[in-house]
């Protein structure tokens, strides 16, 4: 699917909890960065792995057989699954942000945590939360709205989103809406749905209640702040339209076109050779990954009242976190006298926090499956001690988009391994329509023969020590807010 579419008593309580899987509200995309990473981490905290991207087990079997279908039919299935997940515009009034955050908090086990993360979706940070044994409360969610528009008409896409978007922000003063249209990576999906990404600017009752009940005074709130920005058209105080997204094509290409955009549009039989983009007014936090700092007010307020530390973890773009977390895992394995010779590259929401630790593998998370991701892996490998083995699991989104590396380009990563490189659960000749990958990564990763016991969580102090000893190597800042005395 498209990138963005989407003592004994306590043991008993936890197993009861895991039997009754909470269901997300109908209006939120299941197949999205926030919901996927949330489930991956919540499953981990319940000592479980992350099969089929957190989909119900029944879907796993048909997904693993998806490649039997001819490519055209596969595209249809993919399109239908997206359309099916989207909600009709008139149902937007049923959007209830508290229902959404109630579902998020129900995903986590009922226990006390030393820290809670709040903020941007980030796959590398998800592995950090798992290592620390802490929950993460997402700021951004995707509400896919059923709308029909030609993918290469961004102005029209913006126009049809105006009224429903305006009503949504009016109803919910705690949300900012980033209407996003990416005809490159999300080409299939944007034909049937419009991407409403909402960012929480207030904690709201359920997040607040979760902190009050699960983070004791003296605990830490880690604010995960991706500072990725993107040009937008401002529609209202809390409403913007974003043409394009982080990944394959550049900002410049979305707004002004290029040869490879023209070639791409021709390949997909589009009547256009460049996108007639609405003029951007300003740059704001990117719809999917960027952190809206308005939420900091509420975080600071509760921290002051309940004596929490606030640590801001800031980074300029999603993949900046990946080297930190890869190095952290490598260091951690070394501390535990476990070989550190295997790296597994993950992509988007194809990730496995549980099996990463059980197999003793170093996770390197990539934002998606585009050039920037490939470059990021290579530049990490340039700077680190070589790995004997490198495994690769790639998200498949069905579009031969601008900036999509070929399979042979992806396989250059394998050349960097001193012993062997391999695909995990992939059928590379089907890329980028290898939908069976969604089900197979989870079974294939278990074919790695190594098994190590699940370690106890790292303490936040261990992570902070690790980070501050080598912070000059990373494009990440970890800053503790100065506590302010006296509650106002």
């Amino acid at each position, binding site marked *: 699917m498209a990138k963005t579419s989407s003592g004994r008593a306590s043991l008993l309580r936890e197993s009861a909890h895991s039997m009754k899987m909470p269901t997300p509200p109908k209006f939120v995309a299941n197949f999205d960065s926030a919901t996927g990473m949330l489930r991956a981490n919540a499953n981990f905290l319940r000592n479980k792995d992350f099969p089929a991207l957190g989909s119900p087990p029944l879907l796993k079997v048909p997904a693993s057989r998806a490649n039997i279908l001819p490519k055209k039919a596969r595209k249809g299935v993919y399109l239908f699954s997206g359309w099916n997940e989207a909600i009709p515009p008139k149902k937007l009034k049923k959007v209830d942000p508290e229902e959404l955050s109630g579902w998020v908090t129900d995903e986590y086990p009922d226990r006390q945590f030393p820290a809670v993360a709040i903020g941007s979706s980030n796959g590398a940070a998800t592995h950090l939360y798992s290592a620390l044994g802490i929950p993460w409360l997402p700021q951004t969610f995707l509400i896919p709205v059923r709308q029909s528009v030609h993918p290469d008409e961004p102005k029209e896409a913006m126009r049809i989103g105006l009224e429903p978007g305006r009503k949504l922000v009016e109803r919910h003063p705690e949300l900012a809406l980033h209407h996003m249209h990416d005809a490159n990576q999300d080409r299939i999906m944007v034909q049937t749905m419009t991407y409403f990404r909402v960012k929480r600017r207030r904690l709201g009752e359920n997040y607040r209640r979760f902190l009050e009940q699960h983070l004791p005074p*003296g605990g830490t709130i880690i604010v995960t702040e991706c500072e990725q920005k993107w040009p937008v058209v401002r529609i209202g105080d809390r409403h913007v339209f974003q043409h394009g997204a982080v990944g394959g094509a550049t900002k410049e290409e979305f707004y002004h076109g290029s040869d490879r955009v023209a070639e791409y549009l021709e390949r997909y039989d589009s009547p256009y050779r460049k996108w007639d983009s609405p003029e951007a007014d300003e740059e704001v936090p990117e719809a999917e990954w960027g952190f809206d700092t308005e939420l900091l007010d509420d975080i600071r307020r509760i921290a002051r009242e309940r*004596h929490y530390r606030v640590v801001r973890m800031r980074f300029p773009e999603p993949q900046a976190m990946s080297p930190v977390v890869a190095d952290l895992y490598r260091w951690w394995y070394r501390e535990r006298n476990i070989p550190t010779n295997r790296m597994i590259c993950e992509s988007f929401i194809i990730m496995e926090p549980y099996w990463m630790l059980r197999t003793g593998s170093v996770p390197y998370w990539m934002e998606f499956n585009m050039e920037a991701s490939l470059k990021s892996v290579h530049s990490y490998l340039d700077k680190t001690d070589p790995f004997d083995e490198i495994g690769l699991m790639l998200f498949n989104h069905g579009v031969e988009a601008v900036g999509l590396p070929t399979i042979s380009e992806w396989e250059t990563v394998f050349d960097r391994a001193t012993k062997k490189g391999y695909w995990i659960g992939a059928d590379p000749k089907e890329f980028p329509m290898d939908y069976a990958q969604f089900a197979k990564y989870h079974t294939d990763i278990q074919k790695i023969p190594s098994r190590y016991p699940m370690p106890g969580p790292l303490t936040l102090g261990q992570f902070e020590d690790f980070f501050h000893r080598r912070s000059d190597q990373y494009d990440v800042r970890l800053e503790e807010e100065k506590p302010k005395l006296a509650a106002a």
Partner: protein
Amino acid sequence: MSAAVRREQIEQDRSQAPVQQGELWTEVDGRRMFARSWTTPYPAPRVVLVHGLVVSSAYFVPTAELLAADHSVLAPDQPGFGRSDKPDRTLTVPGLAGALIEWFSAAHVARATVVANSVGCQVAAELAMRRPDLVERLVLAAPTVEPAARTVPRIVRRWGQESKTQSRELKKLLLKDYTRAGVPRAIGTLKQALTDRIEDKLPYVTVPTLVVRGTEDPICTQDWAEEVARLLPDGGLLTLPGVPHAMNFDAPEQFVDAIGPFLRPGKGR
């Protein structure tokens, strides 16, 4: 002295005293909150009384009447209890404290000494931790719930023992308050009280705090009361012989006598 005789005396005193007893209705979070009030005609230090689980401010009346001689006293019914409106969802302990913080502002109480009993101590500790600016001094009478008793069977067993120490008048009052709150809210609030870890908060309660325990209290043990006082940065403990858990109703004279010097610091003991 029996409770009946005591009540008669209070009735007599009230007719002579200049203290005005009244009701205060405020709106908090869109719901009405009820409080009993005792106002002196002259400026007097404020005291806010925070009731325990399922009961209401009604069981604080005997203590309030004694305190009212030289304090301006307010005793709110927390949301869901007594005469206050009921939120749809049972509030957590931090939720109850949040409502109380808003009630302070709605009732125009800038700062007060807070006297709490039983589970009310958990609410008051959260309040004092979050808003030390609102709390002058704090009295935690029979604080709950000791970690060793934090399961339903254990707390119910201790409760059973405690009910044997209750006077008939208290039992009658409790029955009325329990009926008003309803069984689901009673169970819901009990669960919340059992998950709330007061010991995590006590080190952050910086206001001067007095812990009071009666020797006839099976719910709050001596060891636990000592632990509570130890965890407080500025805390002390008073143990009152022969006094039960609900000391504010069943032993108000001993209780008020005992906390008097703490409530009026500087006046000598």
